[in-house]
């Protein structure tokens, strides 16, 4: 990577507010190889320059991808990633199969990190506030000097960060020792109450390691472990492994709102908000009655019996809105399971007595003998987020005690409940220094901004789980005039004349290496070739991953505190309201997470898995509640209480509890960037009271009520689903399996019997006018296992990233002009006991008998030798007949000549042409990867083998629900799945399209 080539951004450009890059400069980057590459496709200019490297790089062959292992820093799961670079630009992120946390998958949020990296609204150079209060560019030297100057003054110093670990944590600790910085950590997504409860119940602070692949029954109080909770990629993968094992496996999800996890659960029990604790206690009582708990000491047992003495099942049932039978059923399942798992998390478990709920869960796990089986205490994550420290800091700030405040990877002005008054408090701080990558609310209010490089441009590491030490390495040079946070801190210390700061290391890269050297010796490792070879090996693999520890189990130590369980329902703050009370239910979604991903067009355009809403915030409310409030779908809903007011478009659904208004966190930005700012809907965190419980170190998300009224305006809520149900059409097929007959293992056989006429076993005996076509060499096919597809949408984002799919914006989405080649069809079917949510990835089926092909007058689409439904973009004249005739509606037309900001254009995949206006496009099974795979195989002198080629969706799938391969090879994974009892092809039995995609029926275990 020639750093000389990729420095962009100048003062003038930032002041003008322009996109910065001129085409000329852009080509300097893009053309670092021998050609201007695919990005130029949007202009198709005949005259091109070609710029060779000044110096050759050993790794880089122009036109050949280079991969770097690294770590995803989007949430605190710590998934490993592989960064694909072309001519010095990162073009795609994929999961690192070596990393034990995600083992190959990568969620939508992680996939979209590229867009944060190439965000046109990133801060491009250091900025300082001038006397007029405007942010003006400043040189790095001056900026450092400014900080050093401020550090000379008296006053306390603090640094607020998100969750940090590894070398960066050590560096911040050194800030504390050398410069007296208090380190405060805040991250709204951290399940701190869980960690606290673990301390009381198990004896050590932290989040236990959950093994979903061992739990036959999961009782889940609100944890959205497929989407946002702790480590969704890893959990989903474990869950999928359990589902594939053939064992009966149940997830019982208790939550007022149907979350993604609820939708995938075998049983979703909609509860009244805050009633989960009662339900947990009832389950505990029942289990005790059934004689569970023999493994516990009599003391503990007695205390638990005491705790549950007053629990009355009927009362609980009434309070929760969950029928008595269901509760008893859940207990029976738990009781009968060899290993089960009880967890609580997400918003439902974020009340002011969250700690009690977590303790109940912990005890349930003990009662059910899950500790050591599905709840492992050996490698606990230790979240450091602490609301009390934040509150103390803000109190101190208000008193004017603080002279310098550093902000790193955190946006307190947005992500803290505004009732904590950070925005007021920060004004008293002498110098607020932000190390943000984006001009978010906090950075925009800071006095000095030292823009940090993203994790794709920096060195770093993540040691979030003991035993998993992940490295971050720069996959490319910096795009803008930014520096790694660590470098900046070291430089500041140098300017402030702190001796021997950071061990006297020149920069953070060296500091990191030194830190790893320490780690190397602490772990007592002894690699052949010493530390250096260990280091190189780690960089190559993406870190050092310890083999699973054997033997030694951590002993559970129940402390007396653990029995301090408040059994009553949590309190709700409804200050400042006057009638029309609703419970505010803010939740984390994969689309906007805690607000950090709001400026990524991919995620904004990604339909929310449940609501299918794009480019908006929304308020889900029950149809009964909506009727009461006089609100219909798409109306503006105003929520108001003492703390604040938000206006969000209403989404009327049957899948939230009565009186609950569920709003995703993360939208309603007032700063941050062009995409984030155009979203209708406010920041729901503004409605939250400051701190509802002194004992919990996390924001209680479920603690506010608000007055709801119909607001003004027509926000034009855009949801891209054409229908909420599949109206009885056998598209997404599923079986609701009864296991009372203990026919667990045969469940899938049973399904096949029942629906055998649609299964793959059934030979098509359809009369055809023409002979069945043969594919002599390869016939590419894909299999989608609906039973393990969670609808997490990672594949959708992966597809956008790989195939240069245009993002069209809210207006075009509203008109039905979204471009996603791969969409996830979501259907709610059946009611009551029959209720089922289907998620169905729908992409081009590459039909053997494609309806789209014969209708094209110019052969822009035709059937190729390898079974692909080829689409030749530049031949297309745009009759759109193919789209009409596509039964699966997966063809997308370029209604506009779509625009892409220049920095985002750096991400474009040079192997895929950018489509111009007026032509049709669609999924090609990532034909560029197929070509590349064949090319590689040819170099090796063999045929393509199974696994050689993975389209982007298949690669990114956290649960491996997708498989790709050659259908001519009977041993390929996709062929084997095609012979599965559950296999079927969508619509094939109706219209004989002979799709190359096999779907495997979903199944849910029901009573």
């Amino acid at each position, binding site marked *: 990577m020639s750093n*000389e080539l990729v420095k962009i951004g100048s003062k003038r450009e930032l002041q003008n507010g322009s996109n910065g890059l001129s085409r000329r400069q852009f080509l300097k980057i893009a053309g670092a190889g*021998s050609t201007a590459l695919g990005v130029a496709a949007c202009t198709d200019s005949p005259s*091109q320059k070609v710029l060779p490297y000044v*110096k050759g790089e050993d790794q880089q*062959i122009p*036109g050949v991808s280079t991969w770097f292992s690294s770590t995803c820093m989007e949430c605190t799961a710590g998934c490993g990633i592989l960064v694909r670079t072309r001519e010095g630009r990162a073009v795609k992120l994929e999961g690192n199969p070596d990393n034990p946390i995600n083992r190959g998958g990568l969620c939508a949020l992680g996939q979209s990190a590229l867009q944060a990296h190439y965000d046109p609204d990133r801060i491009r150079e250091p900025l300082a506030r001038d006397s007029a209060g405007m942010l003006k560019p400043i040189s790095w030297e001056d900026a450092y000097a400014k900080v050093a100057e401020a550090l000379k003054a008296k006053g306390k110093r603090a640094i607020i960060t998100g969750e940090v670990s590894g070398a960066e944590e050590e560096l911040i600790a050194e800030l504390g020792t050398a410069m007296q910085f208090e380190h405060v950590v805040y991250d709204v997504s951290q399940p701190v109450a869980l960690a606290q409860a673990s301390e009381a119940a198990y004896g050590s602070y932290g989040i236990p390691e959950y093994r979903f692949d061992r739990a036959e029954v999961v009782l889940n109080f609100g944890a959205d472990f497929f989407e946002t909770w702790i480590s969704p990629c890893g959990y989903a993968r474990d869950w999928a492994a359990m589902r594939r094992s053939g064992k009966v496996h149940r997830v019982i999800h208790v939550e007022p709102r149907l979350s993604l996890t609820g939708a995938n659960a075998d049983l979703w029990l909609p509860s009244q908000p805050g009633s989960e604790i009662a339900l947990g206690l009832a389950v505990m009582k029942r289990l005790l009655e059934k004689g569970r708990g023999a493994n516990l000491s009599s003391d503990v047992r007695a205390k638990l019996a005491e705790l549950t003495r007053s629990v009355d099942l009927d009362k609980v049932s009434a309070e929760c809105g969950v029928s008595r039978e269901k509760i008893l059923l859940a207990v029976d399942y738990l009781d009968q399971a060899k290993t089960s798992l009880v967890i609580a998390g997400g918003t439902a478990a974020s009340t002011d007595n969250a700690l009690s709920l977590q303790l109940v869960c912990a005890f349930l796990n003990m009662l059910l003998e899950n500790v050591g089986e599905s709840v492992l205490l050996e490698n606990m994550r230790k979240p450091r987020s602490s609301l009390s420290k934040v509150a103390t800091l803000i109190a101190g700030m208000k008193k004017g005690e603080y002279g310098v405040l550093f902000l790193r990877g955190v946006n307190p002005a947005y992500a803290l409940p505004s009732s904590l008054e950070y925005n007021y408090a920060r004004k008293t701080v002498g110098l607020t220094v932000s190390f943000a990558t984006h001009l978010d609310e906090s950075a925009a209010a800071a006095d000095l901004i030292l823009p940090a490089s993203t994790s794709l441009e920096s060195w770093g590491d993540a040691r979030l789980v003991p035993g998993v030490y992940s490295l971050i390495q720069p996959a490319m040079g910096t795009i803008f005039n930014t520096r790694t946070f660590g470098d900046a801190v070291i430089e500041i210390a140098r300017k402030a004349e702190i001796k021997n700061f950071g061990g006297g290391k020149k920069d953070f890269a060296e500091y990191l290496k030194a830190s790893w050297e320490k780690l190397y010796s602490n772990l007592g490792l002894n690699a052949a070739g010493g530390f250096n070879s260990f280091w190189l090996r780690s960089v190559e693999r993406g870190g050092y991953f310890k083999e699973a520890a054997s033997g030694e189990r951590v002993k559970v130590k129940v402390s007396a505190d653990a029995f301090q369980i408040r059994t009553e329902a949590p309190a709700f703050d409804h200050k400042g309201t006057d009638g029309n009370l609703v419970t505010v239910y803010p939740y984390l979604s994969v689309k906007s997470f805690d607000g950090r991903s709001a400026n990524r067009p991919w995620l904004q355009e990604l339909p929310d898995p449940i609501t299918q809403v794009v480019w908006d915030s929304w308020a889900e409310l029950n149809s009964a509640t909506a009727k009461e409030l006089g609100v219909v779908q798409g109306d503006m809903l105003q929520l108001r209480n003492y703390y604040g007011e938000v206006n969000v478009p209403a989404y009327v659904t049957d899948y939230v509890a009565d009186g609950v208004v569920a709003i995703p966190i993360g939208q309603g930005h007032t700063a941050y960037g062009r995409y984030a700012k155009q979203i209708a809907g406010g920041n729901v965190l503004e409605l939250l009271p400051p701190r509802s419980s002194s004992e919990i170190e996390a924001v209680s998300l479920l603690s506010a009520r608000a007055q709801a009224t119909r607001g003004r305006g027509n926000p034009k809520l855009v949801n891209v689903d054409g229908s909420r149900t599949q109206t009885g059409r056998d598209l997404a097929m599923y079986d609701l399996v009864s296991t009372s007959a203990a026919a667990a293992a045969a469940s899938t056989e049973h399904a096949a019997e029942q629906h055998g006429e649609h299964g793959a076993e059934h030979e098509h005996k359809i009369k055809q006018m023409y002979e069945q076509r043969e594919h002599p060499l390869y016939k590419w096919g894909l299999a989608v296992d609906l039973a393990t597809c969670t609808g997490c949408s990672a594949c959708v984002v992966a597809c956008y990233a790989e195939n240069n799919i245009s993002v069209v914006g809210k207006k075009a989405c509203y008109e039905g002009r979204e471009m996603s080649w791969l969409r996830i069809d979501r259907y709610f079917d059946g009611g009551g006991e029959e209720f089922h949510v289907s998620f169905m990835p729908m992409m081009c089926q590459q039909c053997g008998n494609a309806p789209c092909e014969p209708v094209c007058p110019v052969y822009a689409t035709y059937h190729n030798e390898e079974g692909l439904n080829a689409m030749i973009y530049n031949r297309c004249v745009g009759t759109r007949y193919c789209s009409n005739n596509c039964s699966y509606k997966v063809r997308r037309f370029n209604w506009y000549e779509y625009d892409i900001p220049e920095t985002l254009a750096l991400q474009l995949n040079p192997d895929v042409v950018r489509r111009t206006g007026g032509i049709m496009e669609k999924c090609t099974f990532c*034909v560029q990867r197929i070509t590349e795979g064949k090319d590689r195989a040819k170099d090796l002198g063999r045929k393509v083998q199974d696994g050689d080629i993975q389209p982007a969706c298949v690669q990114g799938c956290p649960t491996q629900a997708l498989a790709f391969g050659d259908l001519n090879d009977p041993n390929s994974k996709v062929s084997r799945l095609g012979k599965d009892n559950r296999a079927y092809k969508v619509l094939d039995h109706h219209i004989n399209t002979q799709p190359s995609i096999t779907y495997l029926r979903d199944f849910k275990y029901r009573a």
Partner: protein
Amino acid sequence: MLVVIFLALVSVAWRWGGELKAETAQDYHAVGVRQGVWNNGQAALWDLNFLDYFHYFGPPERARGHQPEQPIKFSHVTHVQKNQMDCQFCHWSVDKAAYAAIPEVETCMGCHLQVSGTEQWQKDEINKLKKKNEAGQPIEWTKVHVMPDHVRFNHKRHVKAGVTCQNCHGQIPEMQVVERVSSMKMGWCIDCHRTQGTSIDCYTCHK
């Protein structure tokens, strides 16, 4: 309509006649003659492809005979013909990647640290190179063979299959200034693919 249909039939017949000829003449030059008739404007009557230019409004950069002036008067005659350098010495990635790399400035300097030219113009040009090297700037060559972006052309595959550089690029060793000698239009590619019996599936070359 009538005219169009007539032309179509004539051209099909023409092409089929031509194909037989190409099968018997295995050497590229014989094929090249016919390619010339077909694709290089000598049979404009049959080749109505000029209509395609309505879209581009006539880019000479995409036509045969494109011979742009380069920032440095690099002479293939001197390097290849006189000094017998192998093509792949500089364009080292042709058998490794889809792209044929333009040599890095560093590669040029490998020789030109010692070699500084005999004639004055050579010295001038080499000085330009040296300046670029000192400044750490790349040389902004103008592309001679510009392919549209929807084309997926892989040098590696062609080189490994035994296609020589000259087959497509012409007698580069004799060119003082590089010129595009082939139309490099689709029909030109297809013709060779047909005669060589390689795939004419669209996805072979289109992306």
